[in-house]
Protein backbone atom coordinates (compact mmCIF):
# COMPACT_ATOMS: atom_id res chain seq x y z
CA UNK A 1 0.00 0.00 0.00
CA UNK A 2 1.31 3.43 -0.96
CA UNK A 3 0.18 6.40 1.12
CA UNK A 4 1.17 9.72 -0.43
CA UNK A 5 -0.65 12.98 -1.11
CA UNK A 6 1.27 13.59 -4.32
CA UNK A 7 -0.44 11.89 -7.27
CA UNK A 8 2.79 12.16 -9.26
CA UNK A 9 4.72 10.30 -6.59
CA UNK A 10 2.01 7.65 -6.29
CA UNK A 11 2.24 7.07 -10.01
CA UNK A 12 6.07 7.02 -10.07
CA UNK A 13 6.44 4.72 -7.10
CA UNK A 14 3.70 2.35 -8.24
CA UNK A 15 5.44 2.14 -11.61
CA UNK A 16 8.85 1.53 -10.04
CA UNK A 17 7.38 -1.26 -7.92
CA UNK A 18 5.55 -2.92 -10.81
CA UNK A 19 8.45 -2.66 -13.30
CA UNK A 20 10.72 -4.31 -10.78
CA UNK A 21 8.11 -6.89 -9.88
CA UNK A 22 8.26 -6.04 -6.20
CA UNK A 23 4.56 -6.53 -5.46
CA UNK A 24 1.59 -8.46 -6.79
CA UNK A 25 -1.01 -5.95 -5.85
CA UNK A 26 -0.57 -2.22 -5.18
CA UNK A 27 -3.10 -0.20 -3.24
CA UNK A 28 -2.86 3.57 -3.86
CA UNK A 29 -4.04 5.95 -1.14
CA UNK A 30 -4.08 9.70 -1.68
CA UNK A 31 -4.14 10.52 2.02
CA UNK A 32 -3.48 9.09 5.47
CA UNK A 33 -7.26 8.95 6.04
CA UNK A 34 -7.77 6.96 2.84
CA UNK A 35 -5.08 4.52 3.94
CA UNK A 36 -6.64 4.01 7.35
CA UNK A 37 -10.14 3.59 5.98
CA UNK A 38 -8.91 0.93 3.54
CA UNK A 39 -7.37 -0.97 6.46
CA UNK A 40 -10.55 -0.69 8.53
CA UNK A 41 -12.82 -1.63 5.64
CA UNK A 42 -10.92 -4.83 4.93
CA UNK A 43 -10.20 -5.82 8.51
CA UNK A 44 -11.65 -9.27 7.90
CA UNK A 45 -10.28 -9.89 4.45
CA UNK A 46 -6.67 -10.84 4.87
CA UNK A 47 -6.17 -10.89 1.11
CA UNK A 48 -6.98 -7.17 0.91
CA UNK A 49 -4.64 -6.16 3.73
CA UNK A 50 -1.21 -4.92 2.66
CA UNK A 51 1.94 -6.69 3.80
CA UNK A 52 3.92 -3.51 3.30
CA UNK A 53 2.84 0.09 3.79
CA UNK A 54 5.01 2.78 2.21
CA UNK A 55 4.12 5.93 4.07
CA UNK A 56 4.95 9.55 3.21
CA UNK A 57 5.52 11.97 6.11
CA UNK A 58 4.54 15.37 4.71
CA UNK A 59 0.85 15.31 3.93
CA UNK A 60 -1.83 17.95 4.48
CA UNK A 61 -4.20 17.61 7.45
CA UNK A 62 -3.18 14.15 8.61
CA UNK A 63 0.53 13.56 8.19
CA UNK A 64 2.55 10.37 8.41
CA UNK A 65 3.05 10.67 12.16
CA UNK A 66 -0.68 11.15 12.71
CA UNK A 67 -1.26 8.05 10.60
CA UNK A 68 1.15 6.05 12.75
CA UNK A 69 -0.55 7.15 15.95
CA UNK A 70 -3.91 5.80 14.76
CA UNK A 71 -2.33 2.76 13.12
CA UNK A 72 -0.65 1.66 16.36
CA UNK A 73 -4.01 1.43 18.05
CA UNK A 74 -5.74 -0.57 15.32
CA UNK A 75 -6.66 -4.14 16.21
CA UNK A 76 -3.88 -6.72 15.88
CA UNK A 77 -5.73 -8.63 13.17
CA UNK A 78 -5.14 -5.62 10.92
CA UNK A 79 -1.65 -4.48 11.89
CA UNK A 80 -0.33 -8.02 12.40
CA UNK A 81 -0.13 -8.49 8.62
CA UNK A 82 1.76 -5.33 7.77
CA UNK A 83 5.03 -3.55 8.25
CA UNK A 84 5.39 0.20 7.79
CA UNK A 85 8.27 1.75 5.89
CA UNK A 86 8.57 5.52 5.66
CA UNK A 87 9.21 6.88 2.18
CA UNK A 88 9.90 10.59 2.27
CA UNK A 89 11.99 13.30 0.70
CA UNK A 90 12.47 15.06 4.03
CA UNK A 91 15.87 16.35 5.09
CA UNK A 92 14.58 17.56 8.40
CA UNK A 93 16.74 16.04 11.12
CA UNK A 94 13.84 16.07 13.57
CA UNK A 95 11.47 14.29 11.18
CA UNK A 96 14.10 11.67 10.36
CA UNK A 97 14.82 10.95 14.01
CA UNK A 98 11.14 10.83 14.90
CA UNK A 99 10.47 8.40 12.06
CA UNK A 100 13.36 6.14 13.00
CA UNK A 101 12.39 6.17 16.67
CA UNK A 102 8.79 5.13 15.99
CA UNK A 103 8.31 1.51 17.07
CA UNK A 104 5.91 0.78 14.19
CA UNK A 105 8.39 1.91 11.57
CA UNK A 106 10.62 -0.80 10.17
CA UNK A 107 12.84 1.48 8.14
CA UNK A 108 13.10 4.93 6.66
CA UNK A 109 13.66 5.19 2.91
CA UNK A 110 14.43 8.37 1.05
CA UNK A 111 12.81 9.42 -2.18
CA UNK A 112 13.43 8.76 -4.99
CA UNK A 113 12.59 5.13 -4.28
CA UNK A 114 15.50 2.79 -5.03
CA UNK A 115 14.15 -0.62 -6.05
CA UNK A 116 17.23 -2.38 -4.61
CA UNK A 117 16.57 -0.95 -1.16
CA UNK A 118 12.93 -1.93 -1.29
CA UNK A 119 13.79 -5.41 -2.53
CA UNK A 120 16.06 -5.91 0.48
CA UNK A 121 13.19 -5.09 2.81
CA UNK A 122 10.68 -7.28 0.98
CA UNK A 123 13.06 -10.22 0.84
CA UNK A 124 13.53 -10.00 4.58
CA UNK A 125 9.77 -10.09 5.31
Amino acid at each position, binding site marked *: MLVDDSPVDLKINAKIISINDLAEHIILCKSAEAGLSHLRKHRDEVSELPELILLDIQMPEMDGFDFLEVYQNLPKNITGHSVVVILSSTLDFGDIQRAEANPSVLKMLKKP*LQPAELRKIIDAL
Partner: protein
Amino acid sequence: MNASNVRVLYIDDEDHNLQAFKASFRRQYEIYTANSASEGLKILENVPVHVIIADQKMPGTTGVEFFKSIIHTYPDPVRILLTGYTDIEALADAINHGDIYRYITKPWNDLELHNSIKNAYDAYKAKIDLRNKITELEKTNDELNRFIYSISHELRAPLVSVLGIVNLVKMEDLFHSSGEYWGLIETCSNKLDYYIQKTLQYYKNNKTASDQSQVDFKKLVSELIELYAYTDKNTKFLVNIDQQEVFIGDSFRIEVILGNLISNAIKYQKADEPDKKVNINISINSYHAEIAINDNGIGILNEHLEKIFTQFFKSKNQHGSGLGLFIVKEALTKINGKITVSSNPTDGTTFKITIPNAQFNKEA
Protein backbone atom coordinates in the same frame (compact mmCIF):
# COMPACT_ATOMS: atom_id res chain seq x y z
CA MET B 1 7.47 60.93 23.23
CA ASN B 2 6.73 64.32 24.74
CA ALA B 3 7.83 64.49 28.37
CA SER B 4 4.32 65.45 29.49
CA ASN B 5 3.20 62.03 28.34
CA VAL B 6 5.38 60.42 30.97
CA ARG B 7 3.06 58.93 33.56
CA VAL B 8 4.35 59.16 37.11
CA LEU B 9 2.71 57.58 40.14
CA TYR B 10 3.74 59.02 43.49
CA ILE B 11 2.76 57.21 46.69
CA ASP B 12 3.23 58.93 50.04
CA ASP B 13 1.11 58.98 53.20
CA GLU B 14 1.88 62.66 53.79
CA ASP B 15 -0.57 64.75 51.82
CA HIS B 16 1.58 67.88 51.73
CA ASN B 17 4.37 65.89 50.00
CA LEU B 18 1.91 64.80 47.34
CA GLN B 19 0.77 68.40 46.89
CA ALA B 20 4.34 69.72 46.69
CA PHE B 21 5.25 67.09 44.14
CA LYS B 22 2.27 67.96 42.00
CA ALA B 23 3.05 71.65 42.22
CA SER B 24 6.65 71.11 41.13
CA PHE B 25 6.12 68.63 38.32
CA ARG B 26 2.58 68.88 36.97
CA ARG B 27 3.77 70.84 33.95
CA GLN B 28 6.33 68.23 33.03
CA TYR B 29 4.57 64.95 33.71
CA GLU B 30 1.21 63.30 33.88
CA ILE B 31 1.01 62.84 37.62
CA TYR B 32 -1.01 60.35 39.66
CA THR B 33 -0.86 60.41 43.44
CA ALA B 34 -1.91 57.95 46.12
CA ASN B 35 -1.68 58.21 49.89
CA SER B 36 -1.22 54.47 50.53
CA ALA B 37 0.08 51.33 48.88
CA SER B 38 -3.44 50.02 48.30
CA GLU B 39 -4.52 53.30 46.67
CA GLY B 40 -1.39 53.10 44.51
CA LEU B 41 -2.29 49.59 43.45
CA LYS B 42 -5.74 50.77 42.35
CA ILE B 43 -4.13 53.34 40.08
CA LEU B 44 -1.72 50.75 38.67
CA GLU B 45 -4.67 48.54 37.81
CA ASN B 46 -6.17 51.27 35.67
CA VAL B 47 -3.31 53.36 34.32
CA PRO B 48 -0.22 52.13 32.49
CA VAL B 49 2.31 54.02 34.57
CA HIS B 50 5.95 54.47 33.48
CA VAL B 51 7.63 55.58 36.71
CA ILE B 52 6.62 54.83 40.31
CA ILE B 53 7.94 56.89 43.21
CA ALA B 54 7.15 55.56 46.68
CA ASP B 55 7.93 56.81 50.12
CA GLN B 56 9.63 54.21 52.29
CA LYS B 57 8.03 55.10 55.58
CA MET B 58 4.29 54.65 55.35
CA PRO B 59 1.88 53.13 57.86
CA GLY B 60 1.01 49.55 56.88
CA THR B 61 3.05 48.77 53.80
CA THR B 62 6.51 50.31 53.37
CA GLY B 63 7.75 51.50 49.98
CA VAL B 64 10.10 48.51 49.58
CA GLU B 65 7.36 46.06 50.56
CA PHE B 66 5.10 47.66 48.00
CA PHE B 67 7.73 47.39 45.28
CA LYS B 68 8.38 43.78 46.20
CA SER B 69 4.67 42.99 46.03
CA ILE B 70 4.28 44.28 42.46
CA ILE B 71 7.50 42.84 41.04
CA HIS B 72 5.62 40.11 39.16
CA THR B 73 2.30 41.81 38.53
CA TYR B 74 3.76 45.11 37.27
CA PRO B 75 7.35 44.45 36.28
CA ASP B 76 7.61 47.24 33.73
CA PRO B 77 7.36 50.58 35.60
CA VAL B 78 10.70 51.87 36.82
CA ARG B 79 10.86 52.39 40.59
CA ILE B 80 12.27 55.22 42.67
CA LEU B 81 12.38 54.99 46.47
CA LEU B 82 12.06 58.14 48.59
CA THR B 83 13.10 58.13 52.17
CA GLY B 84 13.45 60.75 54.86
CA TYR B 85 16.28 59.10 56.71
CA THR B 86 19.19 56.92 55.75
CA ASP B 87 17.93 53.48 56.52
CA ILE B 88 20.69 51.05 55.48
CA GLU B 89 18.51 48.02 55.95
CA ALA B 90 15.76 49.43 53.76
CA LEU B 91 18.34 50.42 51.19
CA ALA B 92 19.89 46.95 51.03
CA ASP B 93 16.47 45.34 50.90
CA ALA B 94 15.38 47.72 48.14
CA ILE B 95 18.39 46.94 46.00
CA ASN B 96 18.28 43.21 46.61
CA HIS B 97 14.57 42.53 46.30
CA GLY B 98 12.67 45.51 45.04
CA ASP B 99 14.30 46.03 41.63
CA ILE B 100 14.69 49.71 42.47
CA TYR B 101 16.24 52.11 40.01
CA ARG B 102 17.07 55.10 42.25
CA TYR B 103 17.16 55.95 45.91
CA ILE B 104 16.45 59.56 46.78
CA THR B 105 16.52 61.19 50.20
CA LYS B 106 13.90 63.55 51.49
CA PRO B 107 13.52 66.46 51.32
CA TRP B 108 14.13 66.09 47.62
CA ASN B 109 15.88 68.53 45.42
CA ASP B 110 13.59 69.37 42.48
CA LEU B 111 16.34 69.21 39.88
CA GLU B 112 17.69 65.91 41.18
CA LEU B 113 14.25 64.34 41.27
CA HIS B 114 13.43 65.72 37.85
CA ASN B 115 16.59 64.21 36.40
CA SER B 116 15.89 60.92 38.12
CA ILE B 117 12.40 60.74 36.68
CA LYS B 118 13.74 61.58 33.24
CA ASN B 119 16.40 58.88 33.47
CA ALA B 120 13.91 56.42 34.89
CA TYR B 121 11.65 57.02 31.92
CA ASP B 122 14.56 56.48 29.53
CA ALA B 123 15.29 53.21 31.31
CA TYR B 124 11.63 52.27 30.97
CA LYS B 125 11.68 53.03 27.26
CA ALA B 126 14.91 51.07 26.76
CA LYS B 127 13.39 48.09 28.55
CA ILE B 128 10.24 48.16 26.41
CA ASP B 129 12.20 48.75 23.20
CA LEU B 130 14.41 45.81 23.98
CA ARG B 131 11.43 43.60 24.64
CA ASN B 132 9.77 44.65 21.37
CA LYS B 133 13.00 43.96 19.53
CA ILE B 134 13.20 40.51 21.08
CA THR B 135 9.61 39.73 20.11
CA GLU B 136 10.32 40.98 16.61
CA LEU B 137 13.46 38.86 16.35
CA GLU B 138 11.69 35.81 17.67
CA LYS B 139 9.02 36.30 15.05
CA THR B 140 11.60 36.70 12.27
CA ASN B 141 13.47 33.68 13.49
CA ASP B 142 10.27 31.70 13.58
CA GLU B 143 9.39 32.69 10.05
CA LEU B 144 12.88 31.78 8.89
CA ASN B 145 12.55 28.37 10.53
CA ARG B 146 9.25 27.79 8.80
CA PHE B 147 10.72 28.98 5.52
CA ILE B 148 13.66 26.60 5.79
CA TYR B 149 11.33 23.77 6.74
CA SER B 150 9.19 24.46 3.69
CA ILE B 151 12.27 24.57 1.47
CA SER B 152 13.24 21.16 2.72
CA HIS B 153 9.78 19.86 1.84
CA GLU B 154 7.90 21.90 -0.73
CA LEU B 155 10.93 22.72 -2.84
CA ARG B 156 12.61 19.39 -2.63
CA ALA B 157 9.63 17.05 -2.96
CA PRO B 158 8.89 17.84 -6.64
CA LEU B 159 12.59 17.75 -7.45
CA VAL B 160 12.85 14.29 -5.98
CA SER B 161 9.82 13.31 -8.07
CA VAL B 162 11.75 14.40 -11.16
CA LEU B 163 14.66 12.19 -10.10
CA GLY B 164 12.18 9.36 -9.60
CA ILE B 165 10.90 9.83 -13.13
CA VAL B 166 14.47 9.77 -14.46
CA ASN B 167 14.98 6.46 -12.64
CA LEU B 168 11.82 5.12 -14.25
CA VAL B 169 13.06 6.24 -17.66
CA LYS B 170 16.23 4.25 -17.04
CA MET B 171 14.25 1.18 -15.95
CA GLU B 172 12.13 1.36 -19.07
CA ASP B 173 15.25 1.66 -21.22
CA LEU B 174 14.31 5.09 -22.49
CA PHE B 175 17.30 6.93 -21.03
CA HIS B 176 19.11 7.15 -24.36
CA SER B 177 15.95 7.58 -26.40
CA SER B 178 16.26 11.36 -26.70
CA GLY B 179 19.95 11.89 -27.26
CA GLU B 180 21.54 13.23 -24.12
CA TYR B 181 18.49 15.12 -22.85
CA TRP B 182 17.58 12.70 -20.05
CA GLY B 183 21.16 12.69 -18.85
CA LEU B 184 21.19 16.48 -18.77
CA ILE B 185 17.93 16.57 -16.81
CA GLU B 186 19.42 14.15 -14.33
CA THR B 187 22.64 16.16 -13.94
CA CYS B 188 20.77 19.42 -13.43
CA SER B 189 18.33 17.91 -10.95
CA ASN B 190 21.14 16.35 -8.93
CA LYS B 191 22.95 19.64 -8.86
CA LEU B 192 19.87 21.49 -7.66
CA ASP B 193 19.26 18.85 -5.02
CA TYR B 194 22.86 19.15 -3.87
CA TYR B 195 22.51 22.91 -3.48
CA ILE B 196 19.30 22.55 -1.50
CA GLN B 197 20.96 20.05 0.81
CA LYS B 198 24.06 22.19 1.32
CA THR B 199 21.98 25.30 1.95
CA LEU B 200 20.00 23.48 4.62
CA GLN B 201 23.16 22.12 6.21
CA TYR B 202 24.70 25.56 6.29
CA TYR B 203 21.60 27.10 7.80
CA LYS B 204 21.16 24.39 10.44
CA ASN B 205 24.80 24.69 11.39
CA ASN B 206 24.38 28.41 11.94
CA LYS B 207 21.74 27.86 14.55
CA THR B 208 23.47 27.86 17.89
CA ALA B 209 21.59 25.06 19.57
CA SER B 210 23.83 22.06 19.75
CA ASP B 211 22.66 18.70 20.94
CA GLN B 212 24.89 16.45 22.96
CA SER B 213 24.34 12.80 22.36
CA GLN B 214 26.33 9.60 22.13
CA VAL B 215 28.08 9.13 18.82
CA ASP B 216 28.85 5.66 17.56
CA PHE B 217 31.51 6.35 14.92
CA LYS B 218 31.48 2.84 13.48
CA LYS B 219 27.78 2.99 12.77
CA LEU B 220 27.90 6.58 11.53
CA VAL B 221 30.80 6.03 9.14
CA SER B 222 29.34 2.88 7.64
CA GLU B 223 26.00 4.63 7.09
CA LEU B 224 27.71 7.58 5.43
CA ILE B 225 29.78 5.36 3.17
CA GLU B 226 26.67 3.46 2.16
CA LEU B 227 24.93 6.74 1.42
CA TYR B 228 27.67 8.37 -0.64
CA ALA B 229 29.26 5.35 -2.28
CA TYR B 230 25.95 4.66 -3.95
CA THR B 231 27.02 6.57 -7.03
CA ASP B 232 30.51 5.10 -7.22
CA LYS B 233 31.01 1.45 -6.40
CA ASN B 234 34.64 1.45 -7.58
CA THR B 235 36.12 3.21 -4.59
CA LYS B 236 37.55 0.96 -1.87
CA PHE B 237 37.11 2.05 1.71
CA LEU B 238 39.59 1.03 4.36
CA VAL B 239 38.02 1.90 7.65
CA ASN B 240 39.77 1.55 10.96
CA ILE B 241 37.89 2.78 14.00
CA ASP B 242 39.15 2.42 17.54
CA GLN B 243 36.35 3.45 19.86
CA GLN B 244 36.66 2.04 23.38
CA GLU B 245 35.28 5.12 25.08
CA VAL B 246 31.86 6.68 24.97
CA PHE B 247 31.90 9.77 22.79
CA ILE B 248 29.45 12.55 23.55
CA GLY B 249 29.10 15.27 20.96
CA ASP B 250 26.93 17.10 18.49
CA SER B 251 25.80 14.22 16.31
CA PHE B 252 24.24 16.39 13.62
CA ARG B 253 27.37 18.49 13.05
CA ILE B 254 29.68 15.48 13.19
CA GLU B 255 27.51 13.79 10.57
CA VAL B 256 27.70 16.90 8.39
CA ILE B 257 31.49 17.11 8.74
CA LEU B 258 32.18 13.45 7.99
CA GLY B 259 29.54 13.35 5.27
CA ASN B 260 31.06 16.24 3.36
CA LEU B 261 34.60 14.88 3.65
CA ILE B 262 33.62 11.36 2.63
CA SER B 263 31.58 12.57 -0.32
CA ASN B 264 34.48 14.78 -1.40
CA ALA B 265 36.89 11.85 -1.15
CA ILE B 266 34.63 9.92 -3.53
CA LYS B 267 33.89 12.85 -5.83
CA TYR B 268 37.46 13.96 -6.40
CA GLN B 269 38.93 10.66 -7.51
CA LYS B 270 41.14 10.40 -10.56
CA ALA B 271 38.98 9.19 -13.41
CA ASP B 272 41.65 6.79 -14.69
CA GLU B 273 42.87 5.48 -11.34
CA PRO B 274 42.35 1.69 -11.31
CA ASP B 275 42.74 1.42 -7.53
CA LYS B 276 40.58 4.18 -6.01
CA LYS B 277 41.06 4.24 -2.27
CA VAL B 278 39.78 6.10 0.75
CA ASN B 279 41.32 5.44 4.17
CA ILE B 280 39.38 6.47 7.24
CA ASN B 281 41.14 6.24 10.59
CA ILE B 282 39.36 7.26 13.75
CA SER B 283 40.57 6.89 17.28
CA ILE B 284 38.57 8.00 20.28
CA ASN B 285 39.73 8.57 23.80
CA SER B 286 38.06 10.32 26.68
CA TYR B 287 39.45 13.71 25.60
CA HIS B 288 38.70 13.76 21.91
CA ALA B 289 38.12 11.99 18.62
CA GLU B 290 40.92 12.07 16.08
CA ILE B 291 39.85 11.50 12.55
CA ALA B 292 41.99 11.18 9.44
CA ILE B 293 40.47 10.83 5.99
CA ASN B 294 42.92 10.12 3.21
CA ASP B 295 42.31 9.53 -0.49
CA ASN B 296 44.44 8.94 -3.57
CA GLY B 297 42.34 11.30 -5.65
CA ILE B 298 43.27 14.28 -7.77
CA GLY B 299 44.75 16.18 -4.84
CA ILE B 300 44.68 19.86 -4.03
CA LEU B 301 47.13 22.37 -5.48
CA ASN B 302 49.46 23.86 -2.88
CA GLU B 303 48.35 27.39 -3.63
CA HIS B 304 44.73 26.34 -3.07
CA LEU B 305 45.24 24.69 0.32
CA GLU B 306 44.58 27.86 2.24
CA LYS B 307 41.52 28.84 0.26
CA ILE B 308 39.56 25.62 0.20
CA PHE B 309 37.70 26.42 3.42
CA THR B 310 36.39 29.76 2.20
CA GLN B 311 32.86 30.16 0.98
CA PHE B 312 32.29 29.61 -2.75
CA PHE B 313 35.91 28.76 -3.44
CA LYS B 314 36.03 26.40 -6.38
CA SER B 315 39.07 25.28 -8.29
CA LYS B 316 38.91 25.59 -12.04
CA ASN B 317 37.82 22.47 -13.90
CA GLN B 318 36.02 21.16 -10.82
CA HIS B 319 32.29 21.06 -10.53
CA GLY B 320 31.91 21.60 -6.77
CA SER B 321 29.58 24.14 -5.21
CA GLY B 322 32.25 25.80 -3.10
CA LEU B 323 30.16 25.08 -0.04
CA GLY B 324 31.15 21.64 1.25
CA LEU B 325 34.43 22.43 2.99
CA PHE B 326 33.20 25.84 4.04
CA ILE B 327 30.36 24.11 5.91
CA VAL B 328 32.82 21.60 7.39
CA LYS B 329 34.93 24.42 8.75
CA GLU B 330 31.92 26.35 10.10
CA ALA B 331 30.53 23.24 11.78
CA LEU B 332 33.92 22.48 13.36
CA THR B 333 34.19 26.00 14.70
CA LYS B 334 30.81 25.57 16.42
CA ILE B 335 31.92 22.41 18.23
CA ASN B 336 35.49 23.58 18.97
CA GLY B 337 37.05 21.17 16.54
CA LYS B 338 40.17 21.61 14.43
CA ILE B 339 41.04 20.61 10.89
CA THR B 340 44.27 20.45 8.95
CA VAL B 341 44.84 19.37 5.40
CA SER B 342 47.83 18.17 3.44
CA SER B 343 48.05 17.06 -0.13
CA ASN B 344 50.85 15.71 -2.27
CA PRO B 345 51.08 13.46 -5.31
CA THR B 346 52.42 10.41 -3.44
CA ASP B 347 50.22 10.27 -0.32
CA GLY B 348 47.16 11.94 -1.83
CA THR B 349 45.00 14.28 0.22
CA THR B 350 44.61 13.91 3.96
CA PHE B 351 42.22 15.77 6.22
CA LYS B 352 42.91 15.50 9.93
CA ILE B 353 40.25 16.49 12.42
CA THR B 354 40.13 16.70 16.18
CA ILE B 355 36.79 16.98 17.96
CA PRO B 356 36.61 17.33 21.76
CA ASN B 357 34.74 14.64 23.68
CA ALA B 358 32.06 16.26 25.82
CA GLN B 359 32.11 13.17 28.05
CA PHE B 360 35.42 14.37 29.50
CA ASN B 361 34.37 17.99 29.82
CA LYS B 362 31.22 16.94 31.64
CA GLU B 363 33.20 15.05 34.27
CA ALA B 364 35.75 17.77 34.72
